[in-house]
């Protein structure tokens, strides 16, 4: 009966920042990392991490919701992404650790919220990987069609409910990526650059060829579902801005972060948003908005319809197949490392932080993540996955923005490599934008998300709270305090 206070302490115990630093050995050996990354490189890094997660697949989900106004939706989503990324950058510069928003939350808002954010990240990474692999399957099918005039039967390329049993290409891609990750494969800066070029190249190809079929009549009925529907579409396409937070995590290596970080975030978002808006504009002007629903590998199909030839759609589909592969690799990698960080804190079972001595990779962790993503990709339709991803990401980003305000009040003097400009306007706007977009998501997404939260809370109550590494350690305001005597 004496537990009431101690449970409350447990729920909101925070992990001291110094503990993070000690854990990653960030300051030992070799000293400071070389600050070598400039604005241009970081911008390219952001563009590379962002493009590819959604633009190839999200139009066919979002256009049936808002019609041609989806163009505006991209702009709204882009602005929201910019606001959240700035907030993200401040926390990242204060807390130089991996695990992204999960770690930041753990250090600022307390354990139970960190646990929930960790589960939101499972949506941002795991579920988005599910959506990406589904899209990959569609573009692979398009490549087959253009090359051989043959498509995989629906039974093995569609989830149940859309006329199939299982989405086999999705499963194959996840298996491939997991295999590579378990072997310790890494994507190098060179490969990343090539991938960025491929992605931008095929999008430009689409814009240039698509513009030849520009028909302004298709834009006339701009908001067939009213202005309110734009918000819903913006929430859906927010999915395609995931990855911009990667820029913020580069703080350690960035030269003059105060200037470089915001510039790179803004440049990257301007480039990405411009490309997205142009792609959306061209796509919508090329065919009536009603045609988008049910289209697969949308961009490639549009190219084929307007040119009547197969090569443009083949080039685009092939580019998508290659770049979505690398995106999947990176996203699955991110997911395994976030779970690793959570398991290190005792929030998840130990199996997630077992390292294989030969490859120095968390093999079992990768297998479990792979199974989870493969199941999603194989059995769940794309629009559900995309919405859930947006939901999880927006919630996580919103919490990070709150974290910025909390830390400014609780630790006003802590060193920050980067400070959000126009405080408190930017974090408040960021929170408002996240809430607005979340509120616009369809009702079934809320139901699924509520279920997911329930899983998270049960997981916390029955596992995380009892196994937390901070158990028995009172931690306050970033200062580790000595161990308490025993369990109450």
């Amino acid at each position, binding site marked *: 009966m004496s537990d009431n206070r101690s449970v409350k302490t447990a729920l909101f115990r925070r992990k001291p920042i110094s503990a993070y630093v000690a854990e990653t050995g960030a300051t030992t050996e070799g000293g400071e990392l070389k600050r070598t990354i400039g604005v241009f490189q970081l911008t390219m890094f952001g563009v590379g991490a962002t493009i590819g997660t959604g633009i190839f697949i999200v139009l066919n989900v979002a256009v049936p919701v808002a019609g041609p106004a989806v163009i505006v939706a991209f702009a709204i989503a882009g602005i929201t992404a910019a606001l959240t990324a700035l907030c993200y950058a401040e926390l990242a510069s204060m807390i130089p650790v991996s695990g992204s928003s999960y770690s930041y939350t753990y250090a600022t808002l307390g354990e139970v919220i960190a646990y929930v954010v960790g589960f939101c990240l499972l949506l941002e*990474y795991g579920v988005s990987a599910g959506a990406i692999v589904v899209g990959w399957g569609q573009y692979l099918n398009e490549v087959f069609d253009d090359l051989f005039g043959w498509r995989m039967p629906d039974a093995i390329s569609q989830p149940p409910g859309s006329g199939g049993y299982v989405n086999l290409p999705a499963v194959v891609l996840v298996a491939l990526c997991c295999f590579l990750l378990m072997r310790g494969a890494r*994507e190098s800066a060179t490969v990343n650059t090539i991938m960025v070029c491929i992605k931008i190249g095929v999008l430009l190809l689409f814009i240039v060829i698509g513009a030849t079929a520009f028909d302004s009549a298709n834009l006339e009925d701009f908001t067939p579902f009213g202005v309110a529907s734009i918000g819903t579409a913006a929430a859906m396409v927010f999915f395609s801005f995931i990855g911009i937070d*990667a820029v913020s*995590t580069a703080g*350690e290596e960035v030269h003059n972060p105060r200037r470089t970080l915001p510039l790179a975030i803004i440049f990257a978002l301007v480039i990405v948003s411009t490309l997205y808006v142009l792609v959306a504009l061209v796509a919508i002007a090329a065919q009536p908005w009603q045609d988008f629903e049910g289209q697969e590998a949308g961009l490639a199909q549009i190219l084929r319809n307007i040119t009547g030839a197969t090569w443009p759609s083949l080039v685009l589909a092939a580019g998508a197949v290659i770049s979505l592969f690398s995106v999947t690799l990176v996203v699955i990698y*991110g997911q395994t*490392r*976030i779970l690793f960080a959570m398991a290190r804190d005792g929030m998840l079972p130990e199996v997630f932080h077992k390292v294989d*001595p030969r490859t120095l990779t*968390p093999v079992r962790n990768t297998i479990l993540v792979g199974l989870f993503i493969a199941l999603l990709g194989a059995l769940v339709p794309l629009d559900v996955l995309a919405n859930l991803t947006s939901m999880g990401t927006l919630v996580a980003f919103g919490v990070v923005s709150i974290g910025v305000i909390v830390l400014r009040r609780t630790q006003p003097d802590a060193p920050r490599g980067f400070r959000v400009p126009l405080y408190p306007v930017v974090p408040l706007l960021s929170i408002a934008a996240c809430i607005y977009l979340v509120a616009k998501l369809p009702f079934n997404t809320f139901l699924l998300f509520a279920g997911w939260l329930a899983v998270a809370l049960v997981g916390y109550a029955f596992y995380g709270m009892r196994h937390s590494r901070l158990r028995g350690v009172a931690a306050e305001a970033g200062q580790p305090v000595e161990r308490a005597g025993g369990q109450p």
Partner: protein
Amino acid sequence: MRYLIAYSADSGGRAALAVARLFAGDVTLTVVTITPETWGYPSSARVDAEYAQFLTEHAAKALEEARQFLGEDVEAEFLARAARSTIEGILDAIKELDAKMVILGSARNGPFGRFVGGSVSDSLLHVAPVPVALAPRGYRPSRQTHVQRITCCFAGRGHTGATVAAAAELARRHKVPLRLVTGVVRDRQMYPSLVGWQSERLVEEQWRSDAVEAQRQILAILPEGVEATAELIDGPNWEEALDRLDWAEGEVLVIGSSRLGLGRTFLGSNATKIVRSSPVPTIVVPGAAGRS
């Protein structure tokens, strides 16, 4: 107890002898040179008699050179064997003489002071039933040097036990201390990692503490009479990681075979890199299935 030196009359052969000299006194050294087999029955008009004669003389000359290289003070046996292939000859000799190790020299291409695989060592490292010692190119410690210490590089889990057991056995046989080394070598990094550049550090730290624990356990179960220490090394690649260790003159490195070894030597991906970057002779011990 007998060690076999697979000798050829070149710099690789001399490096192999130099390694063998580290073990002189503790074991019997047998220098074997393999010559091609001639027809086993009288050929018409004995057309290959001169060739056979040449081979015999060649082998005798090679072995005489080996004897001179080893020096008067080193006791050794010298044998010439004819076999259809060098590998077959070496394997037969190992079996017949019940050798406990076979010592090979490096191929001639590649950097001085490192081992480079040639055709014989490449094949032998797939089939040898006993430990194979590989001499770096141009290996030449001073004549009196005896083996000083055995360093065992191991990963810390799985069938590691067999490797450490073999290294401990060597240390006991030659009455030298044993040093256990685990490498934390990560040479690659996911570039657009989405979760920050620090994420690999977390994995690395976890592995570091796992490795320390594994070393502690192994130190606890080492047989009596072996003096052992443990170290962790790290670096962006094996070359640099191995470079950070202090190496005594006359130190040798012991590594295990891949899981695919099944009682024979078989280099895994890390072992291949270690062999290529080791500045001291490397002994590859066979996989676990061969030992009981």
